[in-house]
């Protein structure tokens, strides 16, 4: 029972961490919430770590495997957090100042036609800066 709990905890943490990359790499447009917040993944990870703790705290023999898996889970959770909030973090500010005139521009669209900021005078314009096709 203890080993089953410990194994279940490990599987949950693994699913939480690996699932993030599967979702983001295979279907980023379908899961912007997951990509931006990773909340479902964290729920799985927390549940997995809790199961690991329960497994370790149950009385009886055979404590080493649950102990090892708890350690692995904590390390995985730490690596995941490091990736989400440290490795991919950007430094510095960016973007134009709110309340100021938007910088002018004239660029070609996908048909080759030149489009200018002034073309949109009188109507609101939402500019979305993409990093590529994703």
């Amino acid at each position, binding site marked *: 029972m203890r080993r089953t709990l410990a194994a279940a905890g490990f599987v949950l943490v693994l699913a939480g961490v690996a699932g993030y990359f599967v979702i983001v790499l295979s279907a980023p447009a379908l899961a912007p919430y997951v*990509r931006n917040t990773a909340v479902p993944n964290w729920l799985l990870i927390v549940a997995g770590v809790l199961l690991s703790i329960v497994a370790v705290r149950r009385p009886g023999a055979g404590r080493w495997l649950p102990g090892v898996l708890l350690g692995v889970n904590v390390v995985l959770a730490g690596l995941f957090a490091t990736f989400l909030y440290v490795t991919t973090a950007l430094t510095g500010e960016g973007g*134009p100042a709110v309340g100021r005139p938007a910088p002018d521009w004239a660029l*070609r669209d996908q048909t080759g036609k030149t489009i200018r900021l002034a073309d*949109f005078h009188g109507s609101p314009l939402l500019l979305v*800066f993409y990093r*590529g096709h994703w």
Partner: protein
Amino acid sequence: MVDPVETNAELARKAGLAFPILSDPDLRMIDAYGLRHVAAHDGEDIALSASVLIDGAGIVRWTSVARNVRVRPDPAEALAAIDALGTAQP
């Protein structure tokens, strides 16, 4: 985006996009808006993920600039900002 017009034409065709996709290979507009992300893609400079809402008078009214390369501006936030624009401009 920094891709050439031809790449954007292919993207628009494949994805069925009707809105203009601007090509900024020299990062002129991206720099004017302070959105260059240095060496972000195989050593090349590209734009930060960002949305900028400009009103009919050409004033910047709302911006959302990602502070993490994973994160994309939330479309719901942009829609709310557009709605707020409507109420602020009778």
